[in-house]
């Protein structure tokens, strides 16, 4: 135990490390005679610098991570030539993207073509501002945190449309229409899942939501939202719509289309294409960040005696787990067809979303205890079972029995 106890003070000091660092720099600047408004400006810049560099590092990690995971799933070794175990591979990709010629089609609408990739990265960066990275480590303490995320993520639809419209070619037009329809129809379940959490915590701000998930039930089980019946259903819905929002398999219809070439990104090359690529991964990280903040107890440690590990490590560990699950799904499932995608959203996920709200209300009114559990399960399970049966009636889901001839 001595080794462990030795490390506790070290970890404890790590807990507030980022805040202490920022305070130390500000203090140093202050006694260098920096006037007041500039100090405020510098403190904002420092926090931006903080999470901005962490996320870009995560992006670099993500592209290497994805290749390695997909490779290992497919019994391959994955990139190991460039740098130790292929770690410099993303940097090599970055250089390749930077040096590639940026071809803009002649007939394209230059203005829109240029600002589409910029607009598609915007929401990811803006939404980073309100993520609760650690105990009192939220860059912008907004009272309406979750609302900013939804307001800003509508910009992706506009950017995708602009990309599709500006490249003026048949494939990107069809791809853009499909992408906008997909993102739009999966925005609704995202909002429904989030409102159920807002209803339970009573406030829109993310830090309040994470605090509401503190504390441990009978010493072991952390009372995260995901361990409640409505919370689990809402988390599943949130994660599925998150995959659809960021065009990940099995919903990578717009750009992974084997028959429509590359959807709205057909006419992009060079660093503009890299921006789309970065926006996809950052979007995935941010949405997983929100899923963690809303359902998996943000920076809360899963077990009481583990709280000595700093809170922001928990936050990023949970994000990486969710991203791993997303990549694991990418390695397994084929793509869904467009009309199945739409049917699934409008006929299955949104009605279930409304039922989640009902079940959350029942859970809250029934006192959040075991009684809450018993009462809030039926409004979820009955409609799920009914709809699943209706949805699967015209397919023989269990596979067919075949006859043989001699």
């Amino acid at each position, binding site marked *: 135990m001595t080794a462990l106890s030795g490390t506790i003070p070290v970890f404890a000091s790590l807990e507030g490390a980022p805040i202490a660092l920022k305070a130390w720099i500000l203090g140093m600047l202050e006694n260098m005679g920096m006037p007041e408004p500039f100090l405020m400006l510098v403190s904002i810049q420092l926090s931006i610098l903080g999470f901005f560099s962490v996320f870009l590092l995560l992006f670099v990690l993500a592209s290497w991570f994805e290749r390695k995971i997909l490779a290992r799933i497919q019994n391959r070794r994955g990139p190991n030539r460039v740098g130790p175990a292929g770690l410099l591979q993303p940097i090599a990709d970055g250089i390749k993207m930077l040096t590639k010629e940026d071809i803009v089609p002649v007939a394209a609408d230059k203005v829109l073509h240029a600002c589409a990739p910029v607009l598609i990265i915007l929401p990811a960066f803006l939404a980073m501002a309100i993520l609760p990275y650690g105990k009192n480590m939220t860059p912008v303490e907004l009272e309406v945190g979750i609302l900013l995320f939804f307001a800003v993520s509508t910009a992706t639809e506009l950017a995708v449309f602009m990309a599709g419209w500006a490249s003026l070619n048949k494939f990107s037009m069809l791809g853009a229409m499909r992408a906008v329809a997909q993102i739009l129809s999966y925005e609704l379940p995202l909002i429904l899942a989030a409102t159920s959490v807002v209803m339970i915590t009573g406030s829109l701000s993310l830090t309040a939501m994470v605090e509401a998930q503190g504390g441990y039930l009978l010493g072991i089980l952390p009372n995260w939202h995901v361990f409640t019946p409505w919370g689990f259903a809402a988390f599943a819905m949130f994660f599925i719509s998150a995959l659809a929002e960021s065009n990940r398999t099995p919903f990578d219809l717009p750009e992974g289309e084997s028959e429509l070439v590359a959807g709205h990104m057909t006419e992009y090359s060079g660093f503009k294409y890299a921006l789309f690529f970065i926006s996809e991964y950052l979007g995935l990280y941010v949405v997983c960040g929100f899923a963690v903040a809303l359902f998996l107890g943000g920076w809360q440690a899963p077990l009481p005696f583990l709280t000595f590990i700093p809170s922001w490590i928990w936050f990023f560990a949970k994000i990486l787990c969710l991203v791993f699950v997303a990549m694991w799904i990418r*390695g*397994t499932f084929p793509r869904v067809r467009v009309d199945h995608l739409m049917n699934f959203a409008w006929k299955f996920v949104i009605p279930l979303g409304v039922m989640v709200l009902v079940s959350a209300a029942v859970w809250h009114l029934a006192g959040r205890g075991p009684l809450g559990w018993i009462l809030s399960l039926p409004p979820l399970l009955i409609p799920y079972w009914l709809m699943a049966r209706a949805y699967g009636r015209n397919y023989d889901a269990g596979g067919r029995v075949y006859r043989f001839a001699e």
Partner: protein
Amino acid sequence: MGITAKNFIASYTKPESLITEEYPEEKPKLPENNRNFPFLVFDDDPDAGLRCVSCKICERECPPQCIYIVQERDENGRPVKQPKVFDIDISVCMSCQICVEVCPFDAIKMDQEYELSSLDRFDPLIHDRQRLSKSNEYYHSIHPAEAAAVDAVLAEKAARKAGNKKAADNES
């Protein structure tokens, strides 16, 4: 999902499930019957010991017609059982080893060398006689069983020829 998980974990626990072969470091070991482009066998001396007697059967039988033979002529023009020019255009050859099958003198066999890339599309891909001819020992090294069988047949044929030459001597 379970299957992909199993394979993911297996790739770390069971190293042999990884099928990537690091080519430049680990060279693939070729089975004995493997065949690439043909080569000419010579017994001991590259020029005189060449088994090929330029009978041009392989040139006729080769489906894509990629072999080109010119017969040697001695000083006063009589044909000699030696190929002066024996070119194989390996950009046309599809290594189907029909030439090996039809050659009555076991003069041409299939090689196993596969690193033959060159910078120029034309001349380096036309292997001339000098580059094609390789020793019988090399033949034994790449196709041991087959080489042994061929040697046995040649030895027995030589013995029979020596036998009936001796018979012809003591007859005369």
